[in-house]
């Protein structure tokens, strides 16, 4: 039995409506409890800001695509090197660090849980292997279903139950957590050198539209009672005028889950563009935010862009090809048979560039214009908009109009005339930030019940203590102090153990992988579906029996069993 007492913590815990109170927190064997004995280890938080551990609900940190980002950019690998030190392994990489680099830097910022945003099911083993070397965060993976042939056939046949049964088999087989649709149908079209411009285009050879895929999958998701909703990367990413496509997509979404959203739309900054070309490119964040404000069934994340070097990586192969044609740097393109694809290119977001400056403004506008912070999550689509180490700067921008004005003065001079940002006065408070960095993620991913994102009795003791004194810091003026305070915790506690202290990670750690196993009735079980099996063996280069990820790929893991309505 190990016990820990955290004294004098200034706690903000939005899921429990705690808005900042001095409290003691008691921990036994990795969970929050009501009291501890006299021999408990004591940490005096001295009134410092204390919150549940941070959760990133959309980040690219583990898997084949991420790893390709590493080896196609040796210059990025050289950019973030740290030496072996104490319990810490050597690390390298800036925008795509090694797994230990990712884990240590997230831990230093108080993050304890990560959702890998895009795992190709066929390549799931690689993701799980890297999860095992991301030891200071618990992990889970979105599974890509955007171009899955069997799913698209079920969608074409308007057989939602069959689509759900197929998802159930894949999720269990690859130890995945949730349904991800990346440019649904578009990457399959890219296999034929084409793309889809929006939700009414037809996927070649399948006679379905993205709208069909999205609506069917939203229903299938709820049939399976998955903790998370469908996680969508809309069609037509990064194109001037694409905001209309995004609005049309949002119009498709029914409100069918009482606990959480019915659709999680990711990196919406990249989908909120006005104009007809790069010449008259502008922000349409206000329309997008208004749509979200009218639809409690939608949660978005910002997909904030920050200036500097990074790497873009996505399953959206055709979009990466378009980026490649803009940048003329190196490019990777990859097909995952029968399922999806991917593309990767390095980018540099420049303040001097008008388009980049507008992109930077749009992400902030979305966060500031969406009224309920539970509906707009802080994320950069790491590393696509910026490496996650930029989160503290984003927090400071959201909390301080003065900081935004200071930054606006350094970007392309025409930016102000193309975006609403200069007119927005909202300054988010500490409570809003606590929601946007942990509580909203826990609710959106449906993992509050797993003890994530809050500090109730029985919750996982994942706790971040920041060297910030809320009463003594004025975020709207002291934005440098905000950046500094959120960049490095005083203590990061994972499962009741101090894992990181002032940037020094103290233990080797073991991650826990969360995955979902929907229980489907015998007659709906896809293993009894001869057509599915026949097509699997006919089209895949892998035998169906060899496809599932063996248990040995997961170390510590939690299987979430759901009772599917099938």
């Amino acid at each position, binding site marked *: 039995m190990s016990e820990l007492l955290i004294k004098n913590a200034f706690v903000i815990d939005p899921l429990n409506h705690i808005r900042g109170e001095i409290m003691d927190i008691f921990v036994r064997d990795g969970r929050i409890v009501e009291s501890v004995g006299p021999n408990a280890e004591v940490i005096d938080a001295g009134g410092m800001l204390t919150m549940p551990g941070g959760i990133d609900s959309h980040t690219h940190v583990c898997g084949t695509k991420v790893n390709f980002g590493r080896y*196609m*950019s*040796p*210059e*990025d*690998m*050289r950019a973030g090197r740290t030496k072996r030190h104490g319990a810490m392994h050597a690390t390298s990489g800036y925008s795509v660090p090694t797994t230990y680099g990712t884990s240590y830097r997230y831990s230093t910022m108080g993050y304890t849980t990560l959702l890998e945003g895009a795992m190709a099911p066929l390549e799931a083993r690689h993701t799980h292997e890297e999860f095992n070397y991301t030891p200071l965060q618990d992990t889970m993976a979105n599974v890509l279903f955007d171009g899955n042939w069997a799913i698209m056939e079920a969608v074409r046949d308007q057989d939602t139950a069959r689509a759900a049964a197929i998802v159930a088999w894949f999720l269990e087989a690859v130890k995945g957590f949730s349904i991800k649709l990346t440019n649904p149908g578009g990457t399959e079209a890219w296999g034929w050198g084409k793309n889809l411009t929006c939700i009414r285009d037809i996927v070649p050879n399948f006679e379905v539209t993205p709208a069909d895929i999205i609506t069917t999958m939203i229903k299938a998701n709820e049939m399976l009672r998955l903790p998370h909703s469908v996680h969508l990367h809309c069609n037509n990413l990064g194109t001037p005028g694409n905001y209309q496509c995004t609005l049309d997509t949002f119009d498709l979404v029914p409100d069918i889950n009482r606990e959480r959203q019915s659709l999680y739309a990711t990196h919406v900054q990249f989908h909120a563009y006005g104009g007809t070309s790069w010449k008259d490119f502008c922000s349409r964040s206000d329309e997008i935010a208004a749509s979200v404000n009218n639809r409690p069934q939608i949660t978005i994340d910002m997909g904030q862009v920050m200036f500097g070097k990074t790497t873009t990586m996505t399953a959206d192969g055709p979009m990466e090809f378009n980026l490649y044609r803009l940048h003329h*740097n190196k490019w990777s393109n990859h097909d995952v048979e029968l399922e999806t694809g991917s593309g990767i290119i390095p980018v540099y977001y420049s303040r001097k560039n008008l388009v980049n400056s507008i992109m930077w403004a749009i992400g902030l506008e979305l966060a500031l214009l969406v009224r309920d912070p539970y509906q707009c999550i802080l994320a950069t689509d790491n590393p696509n908009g910026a490496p996650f180490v930029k989160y503290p700067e984003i927090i400071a921008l959201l909390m301080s109009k003065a900081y935004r004005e200071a930054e606006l003065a350094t970007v392309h001079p025409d930016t102000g005339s193309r975006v609403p940002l200069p007119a927005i006065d909202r300054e988010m408070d500490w409570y809003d930030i606590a929601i946007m960095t942990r509580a909203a993620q826990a609710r959106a991913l449906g993992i509050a019940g797993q003890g994530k994102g809050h500090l109730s009795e029985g919750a996982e003791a994942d706790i971040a203590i920041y060297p910030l004194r809320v009463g003594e810091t004025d975020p709207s003026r002291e934005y440098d102090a905000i950046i500094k305070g959120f960049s490095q915790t005083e203590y990061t506690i994972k499962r009741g153990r101090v894992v990181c202290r002032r940037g020094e990670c103290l233990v080797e750690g073991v991650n826990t992988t969360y995955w979902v196993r929907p229980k489907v009735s015998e007659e709906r079980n896809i293993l009894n579906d001869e057509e599915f099996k026949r097509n699997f063996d006919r089209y895949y280069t892998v035998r169906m029996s060899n496809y599932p990820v063996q248990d040995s790929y997961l170390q510590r893991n939690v299987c979430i069993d759901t009772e599917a309505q099938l």
Partner: protein
Amino acid sequence: MMRVVLAVKERKKPFLPIEAEAILPSAFLDQEAKLTVWKGNKELPFAEVFAVSIDGEAESADDVEIVIRGDSSRIKRIGEYMDGGRIVIEGDIGMHCGNFMEAGTIEIMGSADAWLGREMRGGSIICRGNAGDYCGSGYRGEKKGMRGGSIEVFGNAGDFTAEMLAGGSIVIHGNAGDMAGVDMHDGALVIHGDARMVCANMTGGTCTVHGTVADMMPTFVRTGQVLIEGTEFTRFSGDIANRGKGTLFIRRWQYMD
């Protein structure tokens, strides 16, 4: 003036490389500094590898001359980030000599291994023997090679000489290997001997080859004849495959069969 002589001691395994980025004129200004080198994952004091003798005193890096004596052919990264002064290498030198160098002079009496003066910013490197591959280039994944200063090689240079060249000048008195000047975007490359497949993907800068270019890239356009120091050269522009605006001056060339 300060004169530092580093005589490489006899080593049991002379083939094992030593990383010696600490060998810089400015490093000797602080007499107290405990200088070290790395052999694999072991950090060693200077005295284990070199017999060190120091004469005189110096106020700035420019007043320091370092002489490296003995078998230094496997000693790497000498003069990395050098910002003044002089290094004389009496024999051969290992890889990455003069990485990122900004000012001062390095003179190599023997030959240099690969990556001589990579991503160098200023100063000059003189190599009396041959230079290895990637002389004056950018390291893996880097978009810019050498950006300023000069490298002069009296012998031959290896493959990918001046890759990603972005400024400064490189003069090779002998022959260059394959793909000299590949991806160069600025600066000047002069090859007095022969070369092969020069300047593919070039976007800017100039390259002059006094000898014969084998397997000349077909993606350069002839734009005229010019006289350089009394000799007639053909001028080319390209690489048009890359919308490049580089210039080649070439005396003789052959296209690939």
